[in-house]
């Protein structure tokens, strides 16, 4: 009888040992992938790859907002007829005569409604080379996101963090993001509907059989 209890005790002991070792299994070191990310990123040393070779010669400027600093494409170099004062040499009311060639004829503002926005909400007739904030402060064309963020505060928060908008180059640092006007036409910011890029005829065939 005594021998039997001894055996049982040994078996139980072995089971406990086995259980302990199986829990130490490396694959199950963390309870979840989020725990793992948190633990393993504590001693993050950076990576050897860089996004820079993939910027495709886009001129970048560095901005810093609330402790987040990253690159955005230069804007002034991309506007076809910047600086504006090259044409806007006289006050606007003198340029609206019939004998002058029409410019900006293709711009119509489809942005909010007429009660909220018109040209002078963002443009300053006295200072054409810069944008203007709601309170009349000057905003550089390269920092046009500051203009958008006056109303679109949530989108601005997401964009700063990286949840809104697109990254340029790759995931590797340094971080470069498109700015608002790289995707949205500021005069008509909504995306238009379009047809999907492809249609899989093979899937139709397979599913109908």
């Amino acid at each position, binding site marked *: 009888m005594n021998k039997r209890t001894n055996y049982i005790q040994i078996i139980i002991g072995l089971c406990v040992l086995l259980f302990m070792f199986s829990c130490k299994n490396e*694959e199950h070191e963390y309870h*979840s*992938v*989020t725990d*793992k*990310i948190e633990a*393993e*990123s504590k001693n*993050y*040393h*950076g*990576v*050897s*790859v*860089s*996004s820079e*070779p*993939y910027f495709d010669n886009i001129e970048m400027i560095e901005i810093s907002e609330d402790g987040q600093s990253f690159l955005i494409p230069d804007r002034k170099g991309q506007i076809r007829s910047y600086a504006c004062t090259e044409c806007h040499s006289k006050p606007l009311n003198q340029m609206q005569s019939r004998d002058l060639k029409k410019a900006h004829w293709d711009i119509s503002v489809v942005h909010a409604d007429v009660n909220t926005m018109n040209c002078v909400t963002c443009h300053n007739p006295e200072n054409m080379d810069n944008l203007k904030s709601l309170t009349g402060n000057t905003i550089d064309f390269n920092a046009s996101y500051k203009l958008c963020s006056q109303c679109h505060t*949530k*989108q601005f928060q*997401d964009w700063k*963090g*990286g*949840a*809104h*908008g*697109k*990254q340029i*180059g*790759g*995931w*590797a*640092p340094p*971080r470069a993001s*498109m700015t608002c006007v790289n*995707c949205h036409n500021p005069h008509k910011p909504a*995306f238009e*509907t*379009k*047809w*999907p*890029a*492809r*249609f*899989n*005829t*093979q*899937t*139709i065939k397979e599913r109908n059989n």
Partner: protein
Amino acid sequence: MSNNNKKWFSLNLNSRKKQTSSTCGCGKTSGGCNSHTVSTQMSDEEFLEAAVDASIGEERKKDGFDQVFEVKMDRRTAFKQLTASLLIGAGAVSTSCSVVSGEETKEKAQIDWEEQFKGNYKLMSDEEKKGTVDRLVRSYQLRTGKTISMSSKNAEEDVLFGYAFNISKCQGYMDCVSACVEENNQDRNSQMQYIRIHEMKDGKGFNFNEADDNYYHEVPAEGHFYMGTQCFHCDNPPCVDVCPVQATWREDDGLVVIDYDWCVGCRYCMAACPYDGRRFNWSKPEVPEAEMNHNQHYLGNRMRKKGVMEKCTFCVQRSRAGKNPACVEACPTGARVFGNLLDPNSTIRWVLENKKVFRLKEDLGTEPKFWYYMD
């Protein structure tokens, strides 16, 4: 037999690599190989043609299902096939021993032989990886005359790839699908696609039974939202557990990859995946040479064979070089965010820490590294 430190049997068939003794491939030192007699009677092409014809014959034109179910086999054909497969093996030896066949044919035979008997990529040392990649590049060059670049870049330390998908931004344009197909050299005939974009009704939640993943109308459609699925690169991938030959595994940077040359095509992984992330090549994948992406990775977009599995690799050829996957780059709405989960300053980390994120079938414990979020 060349190197002794190799993990698998290899036979040095290439006459360009000088051997110490005057053996030919079959191992005999004198008297010549038996197969010499064969090679003097037929040219190499004729021989190969005859041998392949005898062994698989009309099955060459058949595919998948037909091949299995429409085989008439009496004792005579069975013997014929056995002999023929032996002949093919002998053919490789004969080609290399033959005096008349050209340098290129010999090299091809040597490459085919070494590729046939190479080991599992997972177990290869860096030199062995480079060896197989070089062979594959050379083989492609010999067959098509075109040069490809193929990488065998390993996972980097301090990198764990993760993905986030904004379901309030996706508009269903499917530009990602097109970019993916072009980047990853997917079969054009079967129109294989790794990514599926599901059109779902507002207010019905994630209802895959009623969702449409192959719509063709102007998008976004009124009253619908869109979400994409692909391989989620689970941290606890069930597909890896079921593979009987360990042809698929999880790399250190979190990518779940496949060695197309080790895969036996049993499709267990396809059945095990709860997300429909895996695809099978029912026919020989074909990509027109003009559309071929020549920037390849062994574990990524190199050409696959008939009868093997493939799937999204987060564009391993791009992501390990620091780029974003093709789908992320192609998305016009910015609904796709990709990055390094271990970098506390990465955008993907910001999304995970600041947005309300969730994953598909989280309760399965597969730990997908693909999060959905909303604005």
